[in-house]
């Protein structure tokens, strides 16, 4: 049923259709609406049976999910940013124990400086945790990915994180075609755990593993993610057959036929990029875009296949590894080893900085002229950076950079300095 609905609400409605049995909640922007809406459905009895647990921290949220999942219940939670980092130890633990928890990550920057707006730093911080990470381009896809995520997680006994851009998606109201219960029930069988705490058949879960077996256990986790490279497109195909909708999968090319330059990105920015690509195509430029839905496991073969005929790859990402450069770009470079493709890393949209169509059109034009360096920060205010750099050079006690930058911005834009 097509509804004009907030992204968080669409996800909550869809998660409820997946019949989670234990949902744990700790408030953090911008995921809070999801959990609140799920809570209301539990209260109204629309989601039943379900235990809704208010916890005292994100660490506890993931821990409750671990206990519930190990006891055979379908477990769900949602988080963002600092919350994800606070639960980091348990995030790794859930994956290490092979518990198929599904979590929504409403992507948001990580402080300091504290910032509640969107980028992908949080997801990148848990890149190596063993969770499958799927990135949604639209609210429709965010909703659909949750159904696929439960299916995938439980088939493989691997936790799945559905990443959706905080605010840009979570708080955007747009048309979403919500599934019905019968469709979801047909697509998602009841959870049949591979391991379960059962007094009648007692097992030890979480035993100490030393050097004699740790590598094997880790390698098995890697194998399960490699399995996911087959299962993710298969599940997306089955989802298409069931619903008639293309959601999920590994990579999604757009207008890449004959492209000299291909842009690579993840999440909601793909919509703006497609608009900019359309504009540049009309201007005669051979440019396309490849959206990556599955960041972990990383579909190296599919990425290589989608990109290898281009001469220039522009990886635009909302996160970077400080002191190095792009994170996604590094993976793309690995996938393109041995090809003549040149990779341009573009860091954009950090801390909610808008990525405008205008900026992208300009960026792509410059790319077509061969003007891009190896690493570029889109729309970086160089004068503000320069002022702070010279201040730090001039004065030992130059003070906190974040406050200095805000003051400079106020002064240069005539908005009055912070006092």
């Amino acid at each position, binding site marked *: 049923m097509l509804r004009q609905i907030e992204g968080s609400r669409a996800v909550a409605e869809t998660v409820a259709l997946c019949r989670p049995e234990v949902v744990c909640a700790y408030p953090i922007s911008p995921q809070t609406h999801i959990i609140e809406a799920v809570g209301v459905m539990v209260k109204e009895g629309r989601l039943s049976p379900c235990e809704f*647990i208010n916890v005292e921290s994100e*660490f506890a949220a993931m821990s409750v999910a671990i206990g*519930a999942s190990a006891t055979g219940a379908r477990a769900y939670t949602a988080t963002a940013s600092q919350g994800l980092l606070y639960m980091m130890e348990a995030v790794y633990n859930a994956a290490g124990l092979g518990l198929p928890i599904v979590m929504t990550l409403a992507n948001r920057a990580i402080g300091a400086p504290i910032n509640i707006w969107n980028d992908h730093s949080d997801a990148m911080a848990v890149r190596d945790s063993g969770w499958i990470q799927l990135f949604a381009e639209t609210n429709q896809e965010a909703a659909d990915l949750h159904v696929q995520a439960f299916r995938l997680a439980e088939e493989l006994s691997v936790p799945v994180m559905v990443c959706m851009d905080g605010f840009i998606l979570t708080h955007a109201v747009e048309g979403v075609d919500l599934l019905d219960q019968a469709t979801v029930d047909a697509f998602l069988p009841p959870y049949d755990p591979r391991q379960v705490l059962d007094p009648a058949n007692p097992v*030890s879960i979480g035993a100490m593993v030393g050097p004699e077996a740790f590598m094997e256990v880790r390698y098995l986790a890697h194998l399960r993610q490699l399995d996911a490279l087959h299962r993710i497109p298969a599940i997306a195909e089955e989802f298409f057959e069931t619903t008639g909708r293309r959601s999920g999968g590994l990579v999604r090319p757009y207008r890449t036929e004959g492209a000299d330059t291909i842009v690579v990105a993840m999440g909601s920015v793909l919509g703006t990029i497609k608009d900019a690509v359309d504009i540049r195509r009309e201007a005669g430029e051979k440019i396309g875009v490849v959206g990556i839905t599955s960041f972990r496991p990383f579909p190296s073969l599919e990425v290589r296949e989608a990109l290898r005929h281009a001469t220039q790859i522009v990886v635009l990402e909302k996160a970077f590894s400080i002191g190095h450069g792009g994170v996604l770009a590094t993976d793309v470079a690995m996938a393109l080893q041995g090809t003549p493709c040149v990779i341009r890393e573009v860091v954009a949209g950090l801390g909610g900085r808008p990525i405008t169509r205008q900026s992208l059109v300009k960026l792509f034009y410059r790319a077509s002229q061969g003007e891009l360096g190896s690493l570029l920060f889109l729309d970086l205010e160089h004068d503000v950076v320069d002022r702070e750099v010279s201040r730090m050079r001039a004065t030992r006690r130059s003070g906190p950079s974040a406050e200095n930058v805000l003051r400079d911005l106020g002064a240069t834009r005539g908005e009055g300095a912070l006092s």
Partner: protein
Amino acid sequence: MTKRPIRFYQVGSFAVGNRLLSEGDRTVQSDPSRTNSIDSGHRACQGCGEALGARYALDAAMRATNNQLVAVNATGCLEVFSTPYPETSWRIAWLHSLFGNAPAVATGVAAALRVKGHTEVRVVSQGGDGGTVDIGFGSLSGMFERNDDVLYICYDNEGYMNTGVQRSGATPPAARTATTDVVGPQPGNAFGQGKDLARIAMAHDLAYVATATVADLHDLEAKVERAMQFRGARYLHVLVPCPLGWGTASSETIHVARLAKETGMFPVFEAEFGVVTSVSKIRHPTPVEEYLKVQKRFAHLFGKNPRPEMVAHLQELANRNIERYGLLDRAEPASGVVSGEEPA
């Protein structure tokens, strides 16, 4: 309440002899058909108080729940010595996740059991003092506050013994650890008085809070059994001497635990809904010095540069316990022990 009326004691000790009791009054451990929740062959040190306490507590919990039990374990000695890969000592359903999250994991287990309608299956969460009073404290308090249906058992050996005897929030004053040597002029614990988690648990108004030691295993079993009669969050704090960390002989574990109780250093009581309902009285009032002297971690108080003022301070703490919980019968004045104060 949970006290058994029979009082036979073996010569030279206060231990109740199973052979002197009718079968119904004997320990769960004396029953050849007991669960053996923690099987033999684990890697605990000789004389480990925690292995002893956990075995009694869990077998009692198994009997009390008709073997319908799931145990969650914090990281620590108990977890490490019981599951050296590829072996496990656990003959019950057992889950270890992390150091600081055992109460929250247990909440999740309890929630899953409830949602699946398995309300007959009960949940025990357990950890050492580090996992309980320090790193797991927030998680534990959250579980208490939500009143989740979990019995949490802390096996308190007053330090991080698994990692080589470091100070925890439960380490008593003056006790020497690997990390207290460096932080003050004296080798012993330079600050704090040992975080009193049983009282903190009581402040959460739990249905049941109790303390026990491995010196009175009948009492420990009875308290586990009592705890299982309640629903909601419950807390059991068991003093488990550590021969390694305390510097005591392996054969002295029970004796040292008894001295902790008899000196008043470790009050043994139970409380329901925030009110103390019974205490284990001190039978032979004993100066704390006798408890301290048998432990190498306190040896610096009695060496070449003795610190009688610290011994006196510890005696004051014991006296405060004695007064707070009424550990002495009025009929039995503690001459020379309570330093002139009349117990309440």
